[in-house]
């Protein structure tokens, strides 16, 4: 295939769109030097941007061929790879798929290859961050609704969904991802991922404040002064997580608005990720 260094694909930012880029590249026998999501301005003066339209049929063909041409694990890796925050994840996934279509299932053992290594590293970052958030999510209770705000680097909500829905089977809860403006909502045993631009929370009640105080007190008491080790703590729980952790919040009146919660979340947008790929049933690890 000719490697046109000036060829750049632009796509709509969806997983299906990326699969269509792979389709396009194989049908036209051309290799893009970059694949750009929307809202990224043209970086080079001389490249030609080519818009790739999303097409469910094409994307399904590419996606469904992965298990048979490469392996199921590779399919999982690609899915997870799309949720990571690594710069140029599109190009990485594209290159991984090219390697995979060439070498077959062997690609999963090529750990010393730059592309495979980089993709696995990115996915490891994603899965370890999502594991951390299983512990670091802090709910506040408003009436009967549990609400948490997180600021992850990777898009971890799909990975957290199964864990929290299983754990709080009879509850109604929402986890709001501030970084990606998305929210995971669980009510009456149903899960949704929706866009939420902004979230303003109502005032917390006295019970909530009382339990926050108790938790803070427990947190401070349980440490043994003679073993104080701030460096160890920062390694295991970097400071970027602290902002949303109850134990580090010094004011108990965090949320000022008096508006009811329901109105703000209600029907913000359609269920954007309920496609055939089934993000909410995603597995957490790649063997």
């Amino acid at each position, binding site marked *: 295939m000719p490697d046109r260094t000036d060829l750049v694909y632009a796509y709509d930012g969806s997983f299906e769109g990326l699969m269509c880029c792979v389709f396009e590249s194989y049908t036209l026998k051309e290799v893009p030097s970059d694949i750009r999501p929307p809202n990224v301005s043209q970086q080079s003066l001389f490249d030609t941007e080519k818009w790739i339209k999303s097409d469910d049929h094409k994307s399904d063909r590419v996606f469904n061929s992965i298990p048979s041409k490469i392996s199921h694990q590779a399919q999982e890796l690609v899915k997870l790879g799309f949720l990571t925050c690594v710069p140029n994840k599109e190009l990485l996934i594209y290159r991984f798929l090219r390697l995979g279509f060439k*070498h077959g299932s*062997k690609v*999963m*053992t*090529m*750990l*010393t290859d*730059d592309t495979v*290594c980089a993709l696995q590293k990115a996915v490891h970052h994603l899965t370890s961050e999502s*594991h951390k958030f*299983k*512990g*670091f*999510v*802090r*709910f*506040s*209770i408003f009436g009967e609704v*549990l609400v*948490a705000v997180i600021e992850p680097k990777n898009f971890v909500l799909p990975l957290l969904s199964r*864990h929290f829905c*299983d*754990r*709080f*089977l*009879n*509850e109604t809860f929402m986890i709001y991802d501030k970084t990606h403006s998305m929210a995971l909502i669980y009510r009456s045993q149903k899960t949704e991922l929706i866009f939420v631009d902004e979230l303003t929370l109502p005032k917390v009640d006295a019970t909530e404040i009382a*339990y926050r*105080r*108790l*938790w803070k*007190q*427990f*947190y*401070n*008491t*349980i*440490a*043994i*002064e*003679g*073993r*104080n*080790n*701030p*460096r*160890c*703590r920062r*390694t*295991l*729980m970097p400071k970027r997580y602290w902002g949303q*952790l*109850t*134990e580090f919040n010094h004011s108990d009146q965090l949320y000022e608005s008096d508006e009811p919660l329901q109105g703000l979340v209600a029907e913000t947008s359609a269920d954007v990720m309920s496609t055939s790929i089934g993000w909410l049933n995603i597995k957490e690890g790649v063997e």
Partner: protein
Amino acid sequence: MLKIDIYDKLTILSDSAKYDVACTSSGVDRSGKLGTIGSAAKSGICHSFSADGRCISLLKVLLTNVCIFNCKYCINRESNDIVRAAFTPLELAELTINFYRRNYIEGLFLSSGVIISPNNTVEQMIKTLELLRNVYHFGSYIHVKAIPGADNSLITRLGLLADRMSINIELPSQESLKLLAPNKTKESILRPMGLISSTIQENKSDLVKFRHASKFVPAGQSTQLIVGATPDTDHKILTLTEALYKKYSLKRVFFSAYMPVAEHSLLPSLDIKPPLMREHRLYQADWLLRFYGFEAKELLDEQHPNFNLEVDPKCNWALNHLDQFPIEINKAPYEVLLRVPGIGVTSAKRILIARRSGSIDFLGLKKLGIVLKRAQYFITCKGKILEGLKITSDGALSTLMSNQYKLPSQGPQQLSLFQEPPITREDVQQCLTGQI
């Protein structure tokens, strides 16, 4: 006892419980059920880390810090003049559920001082756990302490409500126990431990026969040993640890560097620092026993009863067995890879996977996540040692040593036109083993 509110109770009873090390929530996988709250994850989940860098996974509290025992090392001993408090089962259940709903914790760690009698204490603990499990339908992790001296039937009932049970041995020898914990004997600790391990075994075969038999301590049992309160050596502690894993099939043995909380002629004085490095070395050795296929006798013996604080146990072993190195990365079996300093369980497995699609060189090793800084002295790739690697005694030593024990640097040096004379492996071995 004064009337005090829940806030003060929590403060007093978590303060008294904090010297217990175990806070893991691992070992059992249980999904949520309709009508219940909670699930358990096999790997365990840390919910926070306290200022001392320890994981907070469970709400670790005592049911009460009233105690009729007088163990000299313990902050809750009868003769100590501190404020005493006790949770009612309802208070503790409410607290647990409310912390759990806010995802502060993964479950409950319930211990207790001995109030009135061991049996009475266990009965109160059972009451609390029954309330949590049967009324609040709490389906998540519970770690409970068995009280030495309680009846077998009570211990069994307690175990059916919990996921993990533990009895702290604390002192690694009968003599130390006699001296510092006059109300406890080796027998009173080992009997319930044996009971738990045999009940776990029976329960496993019951579960095969009757699918709905209730599970007894599904996440196994653990224990804790205090390091540095008595003159017991690392060798003694590690041999005991190994025996506990083998004989009682314990899931974990925890070590706790002795924090001086009490003044007594038989104890180290109050101003000594806790032997944190020694505790760290013991944990490293514990890992070697559990995951790396080492045996206690390979790591320590009568002549070398204590760990080197400067070099970790695996490095120490490797330096004393240089005749077994270097090993070839592309050929060595898993068990041998695991013995190389700088290669752990994950990276050894990754090497095995990567080897299937081609041979590995040093650059590849770096990508696999191997700590070359340590491993370089012990391996070859495709028959060659790392290019440019100079095995000098100072260099090898300082990279293998922990940071705080670094050799003093010799300051800037004039570059020499002539290379240092090459040093043979034997020289290094002599130098390293002799000096350390």
